[in-house]
């Protein structure tokens, strides 16, 4: 259970405070409701590039990092399809430096030309490091493109191609900032040994004067229901064939989301999970086999990925996976098995609450999703899932026509390249 207090400033900024007296530090998390789903299809990777630019100086402060380091602080940020999250930790006495820095870059960036040029280059190198120069590095790009035809989840956060990043202009950067970076499109969470009134006073002082920017609610085209199986095969210079099967699944606020998550746990979370026990350990058909959710706020993907053992074809591998998925559709999971995955979820939630920064991040991302208090209902949501519901959800999701298959084929070394 995470206790917190919440208020909203006149300019629309939501402020959440969680008191944790066990730490000498304080975490400040500013989460913006903008992610790669808000990008134009010809300018993908922009939300993430923008995250880099947020460290290139703001209106009144030429350097973000140095003053933070002077206050004993550390920081980082990440961009997802759904949101962009900035977080820092500081010794609690120096909390005001965090407010000063974060409010100034919410107010306005420096929009420096050199920062744009350098960060474009840094992001291009990041693109290479994460995708082009990495075995299996393009899997998510391929899989998303296969599974989504309309929804912007079809491109990865890093971007669809390097040229989109290369072409980013200063005007686009400015437009993006004023369209999305605003108090009315963000959540401020402070966690640590702090009290609510003091945080609200600081928030009023530093964030209060930032104008509300009347951010327009997003209107994103929804993905039409998939009506037939999609399949793509690619040959790459990797050591092993790998199969990826992606099924459309419910959004984060759908009551069936939790059942779907438990399905992935039954199948592949831990050494006693079904797919590991049956297909990796017993049948030795795979050396790696995982089932997981993309974790997106809007309807995401349930993915199964597996590396078949030597001598097992991708077709045989696929049949074996389908057999396990069919079992989820045909038989109810036992009460014991359900209890087991629920216990594990509950333990994981307990572990995650050990750290003040973790808690701040969870509060922020849940508030962006809908309501920070969701994190306190999670256990009950998971606990209330029944085996009948799991079976129903499995039947809804694991339909052939709802599936996108990516066959990732290892280039054989004996083949001569043409």
């Amino acid at each position: 259970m995470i206790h917190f207090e919440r208020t909203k400033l006149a300019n629309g900024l939501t402020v959440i405070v969680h008191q944790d007296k066990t730490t000498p530090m304080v975490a400040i998390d500013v989460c913006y409701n903008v992610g790669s789903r808000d990008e134009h299809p010809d300018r993908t990777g922009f939300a993430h590039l923008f995250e880099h630019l947020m460290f290139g100086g703001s209106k009144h402060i030429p350097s973000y990092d140095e003053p933070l380091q002077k206050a004993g602080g550390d920081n980082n940020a990440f961009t997802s399809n759904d949101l962009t999250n900035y977080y820092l930790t500081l010794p609690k006495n120096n909390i005001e430096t965090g407010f000063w820095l974060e409010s100034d870059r919410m107010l306005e960036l420096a929009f420096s030309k050199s920062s744009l040029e350098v960060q474009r280059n840094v992001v291009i190198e990041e693109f290479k490091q994460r995708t082009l120069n990495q075995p299996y590095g393009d899997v998510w790009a391929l899989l998303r493109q296969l599974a989504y035809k309309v929804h912007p989840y079809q491109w990865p956060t890093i971007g669809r191609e390097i040229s989109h990043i290369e072409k980013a202009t200063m005007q686009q950067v400015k437009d993006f900032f004023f369209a999305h970076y605003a108090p009315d499109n963000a959540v401020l969470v402070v966690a640590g040994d702090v009290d609510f009134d003091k945080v609200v006073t600081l928030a009023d002082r530093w964030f209060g004067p930032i104008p509300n920017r009347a951010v327009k609610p997003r209107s994103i085209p929804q993905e039409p229901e998939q009506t037939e199986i999609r399949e793509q095969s690619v040959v790459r210079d990797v050591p092993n064939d790998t199969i990826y099967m992606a099924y459309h699944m419910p959004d984060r606020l759908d009551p069936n989301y939790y059942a779907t998550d438990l399905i992935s746990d039954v199948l592949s979370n831990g050494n006693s999970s079904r797919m590991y026990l049956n297909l990796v350990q017993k049948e030795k058909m795979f050396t790696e086999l995982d089932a997981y959710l993309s974790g997106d706020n809007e309807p995401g993907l349930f993915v199964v990925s597996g590396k078949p053992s030597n001598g097992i074809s991708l077709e045989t591998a696929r049949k074996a996976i389908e057999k396990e998925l069919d079992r989820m559709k045909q038989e109810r999971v036992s009460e014991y098995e359900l209890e087991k995955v629920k216990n594990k979820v509950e333990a994981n939630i307990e572990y995650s609450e050990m750290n003040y920064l973790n808690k701040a991040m969870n509060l922020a991302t849940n508030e962006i999703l809908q309501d920070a208090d969701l994190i306190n209902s999670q256990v009950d949501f998971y606990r209330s899932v029944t085996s009948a519901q799991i079976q129903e959800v499995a039947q809804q999701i694991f339909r052939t026509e709802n599936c996108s298959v990516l066959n990732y084929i290892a280039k054989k070394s004996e083949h001569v390249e043409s």
Partner: protein
Amino acid sequence: MLNRKIQPTVHPIEHIDMVQAEKRLLSNGIPVYFVNAGSQDVVKIDFIFEAGTWFQPANLVASLCNSMLEEGSSNFSAAEIGEKFDFYGAYIQLMADQNYGNFNIISLGKYLPTILEITENMIKHSVFPQYELEVLIDKNKQKFLLENQKVKTLCQKKFTQVMFGEAHPYAITNKIEDFDQVSREMLVEFYQSFYHSGNCRIIAAGQVDESVLALLEAHFGGADWQRNTIETPYYEVSPDPHKFHHVEKANGIQSAVRMGKFWVPKNHPDYHALSVLVTILGGYFGSRLMTNIREEKGYTYGIGSFVLSLKHVSYLIITTEVGNEYIEPTLNEIAIEMKRLQTEPVSENELETVKSYLLGEFLRDFDGPFALAGSFKAINDFDLDYSFYDNYLHVLRNITSEELMRLAQQYLNPEDFYTVVAGSTFPTNLT
């Protein structure tokens, strides 16, 4: 009136609450270090054995032996072990590094009695089933092949070979053929020689009290798992005479770079001051290398320098991955940054920044039970005590620019460094 141009007053960090580990002994002499902290009902217990690659008779033995500890014991099959841990939401973390074989468990406190009962059997009576071993070897083979496609892996391997010499246990020399040479008997023998009470210490962190000690005593305090301690071998390093090496990796568009040299051990009088120097060079986001090579030139997504202190040898290493066209400029800039540290005193402003940053990091290193346990292990591995950290704080608060420049002159000569580049482009000017 709010002045956004001026930073709010920064308060120096004066008080640091260092919760220290408390040493206890089990009846058979196993030291148990208690780190009692945290507000959650969570316990992490590390069983640490001197069973790293230093002691292995052949490649892969230490890590496979360690991994096999969850693949079956006299009372529990691999499947049953998995089943129990999953049911209680507990985790086993197995890891063999250069010196230690680690068996760590994380559990909710309320399930600890059950978890420790299984853990006892796993640690004391591992059975190394052939079938599970084959599955494990197949899995690891595939992982090995995958890792070997990454320039950073190829680079790190070559770097350790160049620094230590291929016969030294700190050199990573694993080959795919090694997987076929490991036998069950080798693992069993290694297990019997190194996983016993005479070769074990325990660190318990979280909400730990006398009841946890009683549990540890009941399960691990007996004389029943004492075996003869093997004499520790000693290996001398045998570095390569050539300072520059290239590893070919076809078709890569980025290259991995490792630059490094031997470094002083943790008990050396210069160690702490050098930590500050290495941080200035490449140890934080505002470091010289990050500022110059990422934030000004955009050659890389990241570059850093850090010290790796191993039990018998320490080294400094600079790591990055850069576009092929940036290899030579990057290596030049690294050398320039070292020279700058040797010839220009670090400004008061920069020194203040790095001191504050490191003090903040220090607070983080002593915040929460797991961090506290980690900080304790970092000294305990080297038979050091908490005065190590007191000394560090003293040095950190008092170090001067002059001292740093003197150290840079002594320790940061570019010509002393070994450089390994892995990628498709051979930087011809540098051989």
